[in-house]
């Protein structure tokens, strides 16, 4: 269907967004984007005013990750646009489909160092999948259609569209074309699985290594079928958590720097590693040339550039996981290896007994994970609390665990939870944060207040930049440089200032009741969990070390 309509560039933007199913956008207004905000006034698209453009970008990321839809954020030129950059870089590293719309100074003023002019188009090159600058209003519609297609096709990622003010104001005879087919996946030749099947059937000690690509490809069911057919011992990356069934007897947990001992040992001993939507990241491999030293590699991916990037492969299977995973589903006879892996899983299981009265964060997170409603979604910030959440909470889908993986961006958790809550109003959204990280986007409590979002904030408070403190203790002779936060604000009072109910707990025997109170509360809630400043995340593979040489708690 084709509709012709005379309108401004600004109002055309919202028509095209709606055509692509966008109901919610996150943003912050300013001079060079005022015509777009004026058009918003008449639009049915619902706008959520964040209190910093970084918050808007992360809310768009959280929205996209929790729902599988494209997240959209808006910002003005200059400082508004540069405030989006960290969110774009984060979305780029984790392959998240978001679209950032920035206002720009009018075309006649561009290149003159005008007020609030910054070359955001130039800045975007290193932190987006693609970017556009629209200099003719007649191109706007097509650019927006392309932005959606590019954000979603193949390996997903962020797209920026920079729109000068005069283009937003210009009249356009828009032809609202049918939205381009979004499922137009990158065309790759049919994968040749013959070699991979041969490798798989010869392997005696194969391990399945699952990454974030599985969730992105919407292939959780296919992966679980594959695991059922092959009964492969399996491990997950941080971003892959939720793809594998955490209760499967052959699932060994997360691998890498803070991975489980069983997962890392199994991978190190494997003779075949089947990487699925994973990219051999340095936090996963540890010392690269000692990673899985005896393993041949089968690598499933949608992105050709990931093949042989960090580890040479024996068989590459490029393309859609939904199609390619079933092709490799063959029963295997690897019982002795399965038994060995299960034994390691049993022998090196988590210990939750913890002396003294102070609260043990891993046990708190495990209890929250067990008590929160099914299909709850957890977001995290970055640091020790993030690793404890990854280790001790369990998820049935990757869209239920949102964490800044590739970029490790502090400040992610709270705005991502806001985006997740808006995309899934009926699900329980929990954010696990640290007393350092939460301050990086603390202003978003005002967004929670304004929209009465029932986000549950679990603040693991060690009065330290804990993860950095841990490294200073272990690798910098205990020289604690700039990691003390003992003069933190009163977080309960701070939450209350935003009409958010809050409670502080300091003792083990307070934990269960507090978790129940938080989960039963109808609105937003902040639970401040005071823990010992010296608690460390274990195991830990030191930098540039092989994954089997992990340090463990003593």
């Amino acid at each position, binding site marked *: 269907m084709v509709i012709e309509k005379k309108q401004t560039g600004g109002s055309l933007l919202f028509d095209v967004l709606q055509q692509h199913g966008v109901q919610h956008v996150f943003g912050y207004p300013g001079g060079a984007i005022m015509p777009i905000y004026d058009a918003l006034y008449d639009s049915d698209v619902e706008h959520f005013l964040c209190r910093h453009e970084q918050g808007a970008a992360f809310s768009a990321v959280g929205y996209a990750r929790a729902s599988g839809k494209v997240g959209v954020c808006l910002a003005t030129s200059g400082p508004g646009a540069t405030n989006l950059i960290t969110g774009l870089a984060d979305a780029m590293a984790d392959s998240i489909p978001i679209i950032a719309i920035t206002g720009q100074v009018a075309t006649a003023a561009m290149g003159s160092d005008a007020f609030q002019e910054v070359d955001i*188009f*130039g800045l975007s*090159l*290193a932190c987006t*999948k*693609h970017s556009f600058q629209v200099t003719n209003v007649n191109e706007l519609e097509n650019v927006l259609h392309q932005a959606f297609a590019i954000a979603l096709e193949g390996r997903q990622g962020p797209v920026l569209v920079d729109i000068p003010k005069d283009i937003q104001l210009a009249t356009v005879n828009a032809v609202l074309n049918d939205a381009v087919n979004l499922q137009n996946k990158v065309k790759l030749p049919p994968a040749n699985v013959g070699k991979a099947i041969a490798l798989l059937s010869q392997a005696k000690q194969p391990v399945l290594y699952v990454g974030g690509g599985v969730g992105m490809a919407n292939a959780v069911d296919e992966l679980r079928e594959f695991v059922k057919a092959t009964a492969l011992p399996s491990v997950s990356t941080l971003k892959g958590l939720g793809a594998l069934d955490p209760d499967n007897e052959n699932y060994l947990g997360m691998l890498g720097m803070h991975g489980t001992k069983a997962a890392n040992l199994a991978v190190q001993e494997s003779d075949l590693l089947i990487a699925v939507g994973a990219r051999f990241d340095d936090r996963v491999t540890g010392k690269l040339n000692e990673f899985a030293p005896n393993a041949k590699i089968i690598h499933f991916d949608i*992105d*050709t*550039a990931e093949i*042989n990037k960090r580890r040479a492969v024996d068989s590459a299977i490029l393309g859609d996981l939904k199609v390619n995973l079933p092709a490799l589903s063959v029963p295997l006879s690897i019982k002795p290896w399965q038994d060995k892996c299960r034994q390691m899983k049993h022998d090196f299981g988590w210990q939750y007994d913890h002396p003294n009265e102070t609260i043990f964060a891993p046990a708190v997170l495990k209890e929250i994970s067990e008590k929160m409603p099914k299909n709850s979604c957890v977001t995290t910030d970055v640091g020790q609390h993030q690793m404890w959440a990854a280790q001790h909470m369990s998820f049935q889908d990757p869209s239920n665990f949102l964490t800044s993986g590739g970029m490790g961006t502090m400040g992610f958790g709270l705005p991502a939870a806001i985006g997740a809550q808006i995309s899934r109003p009926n699900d329980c959204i929990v954010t696990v944060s640290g007393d350092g990280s939460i301050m990086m986007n603390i202003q978003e409590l005002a967004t929670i207040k304004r929209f009465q979002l029932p986000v549950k904030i679990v603040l693991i408070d060690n009065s330290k930049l804990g993860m950095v403190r841990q490294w200073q203790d272990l690798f910098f002779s205990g020289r604690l440089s700039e990691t003390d936060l003992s003069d933190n604000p009163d977080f309960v009072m701070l939450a209350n200032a935003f009409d958010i109910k809050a409670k502080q707990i300091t003792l083990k025997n307070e934990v269960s009741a507090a978790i129940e109170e938080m989960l039963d509360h109808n609105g937003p809630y902040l639970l401040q969990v005071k823990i010992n400043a010296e608690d460390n995340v274990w195991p830990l593979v030191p930098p540039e070390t092989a994954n089997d040489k992990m340090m463990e708690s003593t």
Partner: protein
Amino acid sequence: MNDYQLIILADDKQVVLERILQVTRYRGFLINGINAKVNTGTHIGTIELMVSSDRPIELLVDQINKLIDIKEVKVDSKTQQSTA
């Protein structure tokens, strides 16, 4: 260090050259020379890029190929030589 010559066909857009140079530098390749021209009839730009690096050229080819405006990337095999 190995020297390579890439021949890149791309849509004729102002920003294409910037994108190619950014990716080339970021992925660890030194630029030794560049030659670029646009065929106004086809709106296709041809960029010849002379680069050197210790890294395998496939890494760069794959990354340039990922850029949305790129049509084709070829390595001119005659120019592949080791200067190490």
